[in-house]
């Protein structure tokens, strides 16, 4: 029994099954897609993708497929090569499972949308391009997937394109992703020039790679994974429908940047500058996003900032030279984050479009399943022991505490962990418990299997996934085995501190006193003043700079002042001066006469 053949064939079968709803309507006029067929396609694909994952877990088989070679230049050929290794084979079932649940949820959420089939087709296209990105063996195919997910993100964020904020958010997403793409293209160009290849296997080199192309990779990850500096698009992307937020901006697309860094890890795991840069950037991102999430009132924005914060944590794991832990966190995070988004979608739809948590409350009795799964998701997010988030998050924090690193990064990450607990508890208490603040006549019904089944399935995943993955995958790097007690329970301690703080603050906030403004609260509410500062300053300076160069320097200065017209104007001035003597007036004539007489008289001395 040739395991490699089965592995490769079943992976390609997975991809082909996903392509079926796109290709079949083009071939025959009678087959039309419906949301149900697309959901069933993804479900079938998920079930098929379990086969290669099981084979890999059982025997460690890895596969590599060359499909076709593009003879680009004589000595630089770009093959379509797909790599089925641990990362891609493990991520396929996870991504497909989450997508299946989200698509099933979307049949209920988008039921009143007239173009629901187009929506599902977009989601399917996104999924295909994301899987292409995951399974790519060379940077060219990865770039195809990269751009594909960027485009689908744009189309899906602006799904309700009649809304101006949605269009703005989509353009913002595309622009920030583009800035990251510059870094990726720069790195690809350098690699093509120096190593004449884009294959992942040939990427590790013996000599030290210069820092600049690796900075390009970090820039690409910053753009796609919303690290600090290129982060504003992620909260703005919440303008899209909730299934879009659940699929793209929590589990799959935003991890593409981190996945790129995981794949190209051999390039920079001996370059301490890049590792420290990743570490500090990740720590800053996670703290900044957690600070901004503290004062948000829109439930989707809280979860969006939470995603941004967890992405920072993944970047920290990469900075610690532990890409496997980053991948583990990607996998577990997908489950509970998608579930959080689906729960919020259920709440929003049941409250008839209300997204402000100040107008929710006491939903535990009215939406029991949704709120229970919301609690499970929040507990998993906080890193409650032995839920899914614990296995990855606690390992990362333990490694942080026992590594030789920048203590500022450590401090920021620990602070962000406690802030995670704070905003999570805040969201939970304001949404589920306490007094009811919703309008009285709100008919709620969550008893649709299209809502309950995905959410409970993902809840099961959030509970079991961490344990399953860590028990079946032995670690490639030795985790720290002994550490003092207070280091070991640091994550739990800061989380518990956060919970106590949040509960205390919520008790204070039950009194209806409007608190005075103070600078810290303003900083958190206005998202760190980042958006108006960069969006105005950068654009103004670039535009004035380009106006100076193009218009002032070129047109006005070189052509008018110093060039042809300048010559003309200086000649004109001299001529005007000289022609005043030619007017024929006796006065000027006699004036020149007097001048010559004076010169003559003076010269006799």
């Amino acid at each position, binding site marked *: 029994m040739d395991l490699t053949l089965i592995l490769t064939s079943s992976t390609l079968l997975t991809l082909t099954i996903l392509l079926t709803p796109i290709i079949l309507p083009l071939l025959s006029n009678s087959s039309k897609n419906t949301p149900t067929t697309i959901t069933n396609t993804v479900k079938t694909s998920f079930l098929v993708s379990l086969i290669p994952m099981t084979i890999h877990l059982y025997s460690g088989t890895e596969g590599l497929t060359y499909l076709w070679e593009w003879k680009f230049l004589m000595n630089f050929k770009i093959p379509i090569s797909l790599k089925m290794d641990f990362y891609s084979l493990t991520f396929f079932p996870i991504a497909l499972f989450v997508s299946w649940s989200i698509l099933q949820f979307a049949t209920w959420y988008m039921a009143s949308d007239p173009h629901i089939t187009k929506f599902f087709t977009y989601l399917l296209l996104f999924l295909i391009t994301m899987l292409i990105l995951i399974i790519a063996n060379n940077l060219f195919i990865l770039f195809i997937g990269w751009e594909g997910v960027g485009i689908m993100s744009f189309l899906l964020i602006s799904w309700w394109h009649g809304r101006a904020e949605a269009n703005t958010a989509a353009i913002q997403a595309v622009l920030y992703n583009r800035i990251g793409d510059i870094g990726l293209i720069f790195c690809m160009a350098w690699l093509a020039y120096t190593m004449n290849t884009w294959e992942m296997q040939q990427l590790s080199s013996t000599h030290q790679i210069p820092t600049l192309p690796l900075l390009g990779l970090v820039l690409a990850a910053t753009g796609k994974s919303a690290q600090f500096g290129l982060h504003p698009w992620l909260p703005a992307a919440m303008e899209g429908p909730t299934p879009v937020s659940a699929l793209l901006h929590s589990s799959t697309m935003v991890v593409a940047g981190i996945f790129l860094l995981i794949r190209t890890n051999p390039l920079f795991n001996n370059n301490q500058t890049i590792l420290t840069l990743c570490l500090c950037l990740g720590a800053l991102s996670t703290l900044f996003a957690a600070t901004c999430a503290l004062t948000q009132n829109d439930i989707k924005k809280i979860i969006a900032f939470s995603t941004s914060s967890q992405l920072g944590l993944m970047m920290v794991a990469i900075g610690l030279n532990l890409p496997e832990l980053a991948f583990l966190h990607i996998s577990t995070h997908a489950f509970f984050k998608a579930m959080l988004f689906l729960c919020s979608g259920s709440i929003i739809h049941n409250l008839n479009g209300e997204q402000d948590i100040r107008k929710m409350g006491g939903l535990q009795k009215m939406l029991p399943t949704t709120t229970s799964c919301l609690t499970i998701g929040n507990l998993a997010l906080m890193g409650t022991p032995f839920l899914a988030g614990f296995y990855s998050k606690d390992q990362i924090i333990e490694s942080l505490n026992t590594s030789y690193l920048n203590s500022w990064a450590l401090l920021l990450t620990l602070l962000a962990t406690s802030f995670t607990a704070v905003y999570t508890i805040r969201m939970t208490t304001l949404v589920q418990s306490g007094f009811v603040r919703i309008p009285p006549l709100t008919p709620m019904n969550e008893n649709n299997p299209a809502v309950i089944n995905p959410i409970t399935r993902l809840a099961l995943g959030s509970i079991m996934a961490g344990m399953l993955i860590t028990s079946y995958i032995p670690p490639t790097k030795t985790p720290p085995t002994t550490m003092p007690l207070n280091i070991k329970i640091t994550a739990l301690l800061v989380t518990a501190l956060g919970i106590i703080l949040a509960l205390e603050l919520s008790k204070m906030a039950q009194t209806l006193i409007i608190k005075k403004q103070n600078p810290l609260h303003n900083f958190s509410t206005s998202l760190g003043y980042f958006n108006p500062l960069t969006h105005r300053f950068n654009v103004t300076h670039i535009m004035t700079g380009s106006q100076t160069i193009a218009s002032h320097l070129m047109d006005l200065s070189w052509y008018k002042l110093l060039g042809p017209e300048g010559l003309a104007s200086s000649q004109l001035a001299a001529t005007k001066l000289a022609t005043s003597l030619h*007017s*024929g*007036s006796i006065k000027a004539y006699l*004036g020149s006469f*007097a001048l010559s007489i004076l010169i003559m*008289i003076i010269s006799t001395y």
Partner: protein
Amino acid sequence: MTLLHMSFYSTFTLSCLGLAFHRTHLVSALLCLETMMLSMYIALTMWPIQMQTSSQTLLPILMLTFSACEAGTGLALLVASTRTHGSDHLHNFNLLQC
């Protein structure tokens, strides 16, 4: 130089400047021209006395003759220009056309 010499120089210079920087009338220019001639006449007269060369006593008389001709010409021009331009205001005159 002596006081005498300085008076010749200053008269000549002042009347030159007066010729050049008159304001309105042509006749004042002609008067300045006469002053220039006068100062030159007196200077030429003083010269043979100081140098004791009596043969050059003729020089001022010659100059006076030509000065008279020139004064006559100037006055004729004045009259002619008054005929054509209506007055002797200098800003009516143009070197480039009559």
